[in-house]
């Protein structure tokens, strides 16, 4: 396979821009997802029935619909009802709507894994509910959910490719445009894959390091 190297070098600035945009959108989306996940998992623990049902409904909606359709609805549908959101913000909201439910599930599993005896001991010391959540429940839950939270981060990063659907020039859409313009299919796709590897490889290495550290902190091996 003969690759046109000079074409690839020419396109580096465009890919760099796309890469930075991808990272930026993913960063905000993941950050918001985590915040949503924390809030929703605490609500589910709290056992306030109305709030729990709302959270449950949100989780079902978010998990059982495709991100692309969520984005189309936000970007093309809502403006017709008078709510106009700019594309990048749509992307972040969409990713957070999707990611929030995944983060909630991961944290909820972590909370469920905290032994009942830990909670009773904390109560016996006289901790209030909010202190119990802050000092005992969340630190332990987050620690044990690190692998799941990490897997979610990688999943959400990959989902940014779907932003192509609302004309955001992230990595995948940039590539698609370039293929359409220059027909340099192999070169463009190769650069795309390299782009994703640049984000995902360090990220998965970081996560497996973090996972090992956390496990060491928790169990000592």
């Amino acid at each position, binding site marked *: 396979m003969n690759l046109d190297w000079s074409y690839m070098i020419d396109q580096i600035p465009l890919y760099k821009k796309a890469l930075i945009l991808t990272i930026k959108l993913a960063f905000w989306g993941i950050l918001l997802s985590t915040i949503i996940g924390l809030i929703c998992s605490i609500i589910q623990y709290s056992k306030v029935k109305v709030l729990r049902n709302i959270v449950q409904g949100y989780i079902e909606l978010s998990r059982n619909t495709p991100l692309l359709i969520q984005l189309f609805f936000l970007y093309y549908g809502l403006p017709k009802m008078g709510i106009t959101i700019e594309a990048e913000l749509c992307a972040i909201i969409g990713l957070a709507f999707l990611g929030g439910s995944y983060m909630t599930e991961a944290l909820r599993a972590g909370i469920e894994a905290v032994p009942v005896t830990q909670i009773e001991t904390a109560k016996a010391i006289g901790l209030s509910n909010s202190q119990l959540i802050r000092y005992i429940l969340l630190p*332990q839950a987050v620690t044990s959910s690190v692998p799941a939270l990490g897997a979610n981060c990688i999943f959400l990063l990959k989902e940014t490719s779907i932003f192509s659907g609302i004309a955001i020039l992230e990595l995948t859409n940039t590539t698609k445009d370039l293929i359409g313009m220059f027909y340099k299919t192999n070169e463009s796709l190769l650069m795309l894959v390299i782009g994703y590897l640049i984000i995902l490889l360090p990220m998965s290495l970081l996560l497996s390091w973090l996972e090992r550290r956390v496990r060491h902190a928790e169990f000592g091996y």
Partner: protein
Amino acid sequence: MSEATPLLQVKKLVKKYNNKTILNGIDLTVDKGKVIVILGPSGCGKSTLLRCLNGLEDIQDGSILFAGQELIDPKVSWQKIRQQIGMVFQSYDLFPNMTVLENVLLGPIKVQKRDRAEALAQARELLQRVDLADRENDYPRQLSGGQKQRIAIVRALCMNPEIMLFDEVTASLDPEMVREVLNVILQLASQGMTMVIVTHEMNFARSVADEIIFLDNGNICEAGHPEDFFNNPQTDRAKQFLNILQF
């Protein structure tokens, strides 16, 4: 509080799970400075009784008075009461995300809002007393079961409780570690700490108790001085229980 008011008084306490009666009208009085040991076969409700005393179980009938105050009242905040009732569990649940010192100081600083330096001084003194002064920066995973249980006792003591509840604190320890934990409790008794203890260690019960309560099927079958109970049990159930323990 007058001399006559017992520190803790339980009247006609009834506890049910679904429709099964676990505790069937328990009466119990704990005077200040006294050590009560609760004995009985597995499943007799002794741990449940202890948990009721700390509000970890809701009760269906009866009352619990602490220093004359009725605790079975929706207006009573268990969170406040628990600061005065120390409890140590079988599973020595130290918080794995905190060091020994952080475990001990969590209650005094975050719950009681005490001055850090003062709480720290007390924590160190207590750790010294249980021979673990050098482990204050260790994490629970670095400690043996016996060490963890001693830290759990210190953690409860550091809140300056009026009374301590011990729920089978040596039951999940290796035999060689049981002694070090029981010594700490004996030491507390000699200093006049009020305690309610659930245990299976008969020799320990005999030497530490001011009063033995023998519980069976959710009822108090026998209550009295340890020497009387061990040498001359009155009921068949108690005789049977003590016989099983002798080889």
